[in-house]
């Protein structure tokens, strides 16, 4: 189930979803980060039995989002691929054949270290450090803010830890939003949560399967 929450940043209408990606109306684009495609196969190669069906699920979710918003563009702010070329990437390529008209733009992250020819082969437009569209700047890990741009980044896999009075702790993924930047949750479900780092004065939009919470 796709639950949404609309916010406005620098006069851009952004639709946050509880499926770990946001939709940008003006550009008809889905914006997401940290897919880490190839992670399960990379683990398998090292003798750690992580099922590949994780990738199927991630891709299924992405397909649902594309259909739901009728998006024609994906802007991925880094860590599309986890490590070396492996069978998961073949599966991704197979999946892509169903979306002939989908344009994919990648701003490289620290994990994206494959040869340029591979990205070409996938028909992915690659930006090495950042990409600016209108007043939005896309970058993998936002280190320095630029005054006239609203930054959208990923990398840190943000989450919030909610501690109840007892021993229980609930961790939820979230979008971290300040006046000048937004940090996306990691798209892949096979990622951990970082509940330690917060930009100053940020609102955390945490979500579950059926709701959003502002914290």
């Amino acid at each position, binding site marked *: 189930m796709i639950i949404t929450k609309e916010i406005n940043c620098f006069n851009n209408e952004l639709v946050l979803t509880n499926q770990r990606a946001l939709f940008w109306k003006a550009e008809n684009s889905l914006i997401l980060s940290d897919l880490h495609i190839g992670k399960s*196969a*990379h*683990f*398998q*190669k*090292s*003798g*750690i*039995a*992580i*099922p*590949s*069906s*994780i990738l199927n699920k991630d891709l299924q979710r992405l397909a649902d989002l594309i259909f739901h918003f009728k998006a024609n563009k994906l802007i991925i702010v880094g860590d599309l691929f*986890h*490590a070396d070329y*492996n*069978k*998961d990437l073949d599966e991704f390529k197979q999946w892509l054949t169903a979306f002939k008209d989908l344009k994919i733009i990648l701003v490289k992250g620290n*994990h994206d270290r494959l040869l340029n020819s591979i990205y070409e082969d996938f028909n992915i437009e690659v930006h090495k450090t950042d990409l600016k569209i209108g007043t939005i700047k896309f970058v993998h890990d936002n280190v320095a803010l630029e005054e006239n741009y609203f930054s959208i980044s990923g990398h840190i896999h943000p989450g*919030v830890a*909610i501690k*109840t*009075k*007892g*021993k*229980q702790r*609930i961790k*939820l993924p979230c979008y971290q939003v300040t006046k000048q930047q937004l940090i996306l949750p990691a798209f892949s*479900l*096979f*990622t*951990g949560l970082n*509940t*330690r780092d*917060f930009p100053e004065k940020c609102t*955390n939009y*945490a979500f*579950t399967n*059926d*709701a959003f*919470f*502002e*914290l």
Partner: protein
Amino acid sequence: MRNFKQSQGYTIIQNWMESKGQKPFTFQSKTWERYHNNYSGVVVAPTGFGKTFSVFLAVVIDYLNHPNKYKKGLKLIWVSPLRSLAKDLAKAMKTALDEIGLDWEIAVRNGDTPTNIRRQQERLMPDVLLTTPETLHLLFSQKKNSKWFKEVHCIAVDEWHELLGSKRGVLVELAIARIKSLTSNLRIWGITATIGNLEEAKEVLIPYKGLKTTMIKAKEKKKIDIVSVLPDEVEELSWAGHLGKKMSHKIIPIIYENNTTLIFTNTRNQSELWYQILIEEAPDLIGQIAIHHGSIDKKQRNFIEDAIADGLLKAVVCTSSLDLGVDFKPVDCVIQIGSAKGIARFLQRAGRSGHSPFETSKMYAVPTHSLQLIEVAAVKEAIKQNEIEARIPYVLSFDVLVQFLVTLAVGEGFKPKETYELVREIHAYHYLTQEEYNWCLHFITQGGNTLKGYEEFHKVVLDEDGFYRVKSRRIAMLHRMNIGVIVGEVMLFVKYFSGGYIGMVEEFFISKLKKGEAFVIGGKVVEMYQIKDMTVLVKRSKSKKAITPSWLGGRLPLTSYLTHFLRLKLSDAITANFREKELQFLHPLLKSQEEKSHIPRHDEFLTELIQTKDGYHLFMYPFEGRLVHEIMASLIAYRISKIKPLTFTIAQNDYGFELLSDQEIPINEENIHQILSKENLMSDITASINASEMASRKFRDIAVVAGLVVQSQPGNRKNNKSLQSSSGLIFRVLNEHEPDNLLLKQAYNEVFDYELESARLQTAFQRISESKIILKNASNFTPLSFPLKVDSLRGTMSNEELSKRIERIQKRALTSQYL
């Protein structure tokens, strides 16, 4: 008997001892003789009475009697749980052999052994190898390792009681099984302290039908003097748990009266606090008092241990970090602060003082709240009756089996059928089914049961010759790094920004700290500056408001053996003719409990209902230890909420638990039996707790042991970073994608066996069902309920949905600036 005592070997040893003016203890010569007659067995003896020489010299005598039966190479494998013991032990063995005139080579091999020495050993094994269970398994992962074990005559397991109740015990069982399969006439000997299940301990160590087994118990006993340190007046001791700071002026004179005192606390947190208290109370002790716990830098710890051995320290505040290990001759006094939580642990700690055979161990028990005095009386009684806790061996640990199979596959490879028969012979896998075994094979070769789910997974490969092998060097290397079953918390080094290590803290603790916040570690106040590469960089701080790290795992529950005696003592306490000074001292308090409410006799179960301005309190006192109470509290809350939906605040300690509600709790003489019923126990418990969250926590160790999580070493720079993932994440993934995974099943089983202590819970409810249930209304807090009231560790139990709950938490968070 005559025959043996006339043998050449015995005569040589006898003469050697005589030349030193010694005589063997009866249990020693008995061990020698049984060994001579081809027995395997278990030696039960207190420390300090030469238990090492019982088994070690047995092998020596046998060799002296039949030198031609022994060929070149490894003859005796000596397994001990601690690395630190090995060096001293090897020295003692070497000295003995030099004096006897036997030129055996004795060597130590463990994680600290340098690579060049290891390579040297691999070319030519020594005659005696002192090692750990983990290092033995590492040997199995080497190419052509079986040749090293062909001439082994004996495998001896020292401190078997320490290994038995843990997965390390399973490692030992597996190692013995493999070595036994490689050599023709192996004798297996264990050395253990007294525990509650000695017969079982023997069965687990030596499950082989073809071996003659025996148990030899030393008659020698360690004398122990237990003294309760009482405050001047009963009122001085708080009803509730506090640090007992007021007792510090009673402790200082004890320190001065003795040479060296070990002061045991239960948590690292408490040891840090007590260290501060003691140097404040007696500043001239600075420099003569040290602090020792698992989070202090290893070099620093070694330094402190050497200083104790050299008699340079008056006192050391420590935790279980000094429970075991080399003997400290100068230590002549031990102080236990708070409860030792168990009889065995109490004895173990007491035994750290007065170490030589005929000295008396001196133990001062310092209560931190009044009811602990009853505990001291209970421990004394238990020791008098020689009732000591059992160590329950692990069974069906699939994680260890999976690790073992991969170890074999990395080493020489294994054949599935033979290995199945090998593991089925040992206690841990006696009930392993063919299906379960096949699953394990499946898991290491294909990753799981899902077809096509693991195309890139080729950890272990089935070769054409029918052997399972690991082909990839990288996988072999990762596996070797991961052998073992001790899974630590994720620890970070703490280092000064300007350089210099201080110690280690759990990531869990640091994750809650903000930059600039001060905390105490190793007796120093520092402030957090930065976290980098698994290292916390800190600066010195002058802050008065430093937090003491709360290391996890410090909260052990009282053992069921101890609580049994506790109930008996409390039951006796009110009758007039008691002689124990602890009970005498507590009399005013106990009398007040009897007047305000009731003191439960051994065949009674007490429930108190108290109404205050906080709300309606329900107190129950099963005296079963914190863990069981935590579960019972959830269960009782669940059963009451079926009568009337209520939200409770829950608190528990080692004696009982409290349910607090803002509405009247519908409990009365009629329905209380129903609420405490033993019927539908496990199903009600499953409904009342969050089993999957508990299982997820248990899965942490399992995932590491089974090789699903690559452990990162503190201080290491990002090794295998692309392979990092948390066990919680893998637990979630497997739950969703591979629900039949046996390692998940094991996690749930471990929750029921160890976390819920289901056996103990069932016994408790059985006992309650046979007890007379007493329901009392009290107008105010009673001495029994008060400690619970102030217990800070509170949990909430409610049946609201997650989203609703978060909304509620969110509101609270906004008002208290939670994030």
